[in-house]
């Protein structure tokens, strides 16, 4: 039996049947209890790919299997008990307290007319504690800072207790300290048994945590593999369409852009043809 949690085969999707594919013939697999980074520039199709994994969009061709079973064989309820999503950000117009908001993560376990019980609230409290923001329990969501909101969004998906957690750009609008807090929590989740998939355009965030990278550009997967295999000056330059260099600082991989502004004269700004 294939040990992969998620298996993606020849997946394609297009927003406009006549136009370019947003995701084109993508294949890869994800092993349990790992962190996979979908890495690529803006507009590479990362979010679309996450939405396909969530079944929010229906693929044009190809298939996705979750634990050996086709994704579309899952009921909506079953799916939501297995896959959670941390959106890039969430605009919440009403003043839910953090605890009320996190408790919404219990929806996959409640019937359509059911209201969360004390035990659900307890799980929500536990989730807030896991991401270290118990003190925000009674704070209204609109009063949270960007970093705090990101952690509360994460807590809401933990409350869902999913096997696979999808995170859409979880670190992109965080400062460095908050980024590291988020990555640490992701690391803890992996050790506790969750499989994580996150999209990012920040190669350094990927290098800090990912077991596996899926490098995307213009809807296509350029490379997949471990950090050692694909995190190189050559592949990253190709992925981002600009010259970068991978350096080692204090044992950490750091990516440096080595292109001057207005660098198109040297003809190297677009190594990967679209």
């Amino acid at each position, binding site marked *: 039996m294939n040990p992969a949690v998620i298996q993606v085969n020849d997946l394609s999707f297009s927003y406009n049947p006549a136009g370019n594919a947003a995701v084109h013939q993508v294949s890869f697999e994800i092993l349990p209890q790992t962190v996979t980074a979908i890495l690529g520039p803006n507009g590479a199709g990362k979010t679309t790919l996450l*939405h396909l994994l*969530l079944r*929010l969009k229906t693929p044009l061709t190809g298939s996705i299997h979750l634990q050996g079973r086709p994704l579309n064989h899952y009921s*909506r*309820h079953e*799916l*939501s*008990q297995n*896959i*959670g*999503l941390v*959106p890039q950000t*969430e*605009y*919440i*117009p*009403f*003043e*839910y*307290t953090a605890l*009320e908001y996190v408790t*919404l*993560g219990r*929806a*996959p376990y*409640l019937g*359509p*007319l*059911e*209201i*969360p019980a004390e035990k659900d609230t307890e799980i929500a409290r536990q989730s807030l504690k896991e991401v270290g923001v118990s003190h925000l329990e009674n704070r*209204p*969501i*609109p*009063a949270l800072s960007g970093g705090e909101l990101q952690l509360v969004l994460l807590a809401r*998906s933990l409350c*869902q207790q999913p096997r696979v957690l*999808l995170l859409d750009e979880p670190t992109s609008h965080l400062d460095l300290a908050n980024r590291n807090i988020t990555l640490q929590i992701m690391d803890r989740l992996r050790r506790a048994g969750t499989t994580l998939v996150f999209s990012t355009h920040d190669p350094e965030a990927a290098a800090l945590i990912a077991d596996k990278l899926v490098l995307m550009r213009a809807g296509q997967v350029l490379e997949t593999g471990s950090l050692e295999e694909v995190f190189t000056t050559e592949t990253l330059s190709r992925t981002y369409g600009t010259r970068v260099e991978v350096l080692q600082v204090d044992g950490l991989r750091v990516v440096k852009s080595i292109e001057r502004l207005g660098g198109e004269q040297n003809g190297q700004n677009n190594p990967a043809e679209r």
Partner: protein
Amino acid sequence: MKNNKNLTAFVLVVTPLIVLGISLFIGRYPKPLLMPLSVLLHDQLGQNLVYNLRLPRLITSALLGMSLATAGGVMQMLFRNPLVEPGFLGVTQGAGFGAALSILFLTTAPLVVELSAAGFAIIGLLLSYFIARRIRFGGWVLRLVLSGIAVSAIFSAGLGILKYMADPTSQLPEIVFWLLGGLWSVTWTDLWYILPVVVIGLVIIYLMRWRLNLLSLSDETAFSLGVAVGRERTLLLAASVAITAVVVSVAGIVGWIGLIIPHIARRIAGANAASFIPVSMSLGAVFGIICDDLARVLTTGEVPLGIITSLIGAVIFLIMMTSRSMRIAR
């Protein structure tokens, strides 16, 4: 904790009943303001008045307030916008147009006017819905808002034409009075006609009140939590439009209840729909009854209900907006 919940539920149910009971004695018979208990016990006319006029009218005013407040709260959540009100989506303007059409070309008999108003309220909604489906840009909420605005504008233009055509001595005052809103013509028949729709709509909303929180999230998050976003939104929207359409059809256009009561309810009970929807229902009923009491007793005639709700509603809104504890969620 449990006791506290029971006490809250008790207060929410009993308060409107007490207000309704007291209001039975409020009116202008035999003299303005309070009717003595002895009249109800011994005076045939008094008994008749209370049972055949005041009771159905008061129950209707309670249902009116309850329906508009609840529908407003629901729509604010479905459209993720705290400034939405139930007349939105062509419902109110459609009802006004339907009523005027009946007054002008059919009859001023209340039941016919009401049916025509309800029919056009639903036509207004359906038009908004189907036009929204055909718009090719923006999210679902934006598309509904845009088509709702356009449909409302078309109906209000149509209403303008009807008013222009109306006989200024007989038909025009009827139309204007209907548009200002009021419950003076309500009988038991009207009440029986709106009751089933209102009860079914309110029960659906009450039972699904916690789900409303999920529907106020972005589509992708709601989907990831296993919510059938389109189906659940449509069901709750249909329930709130149906109750709005039937109460508007008997009461005319009564503004501000649907906007202001959910806001006050959220202040009292918090943003969680599981707790603020019941408060909205109770508070809406109380507000509806009290406004109708004022409509009945303020002058020797009848002050249109819509004027009273708008006046009180807008004043409360201003007080809330300028008070220190108001936080804008943005």
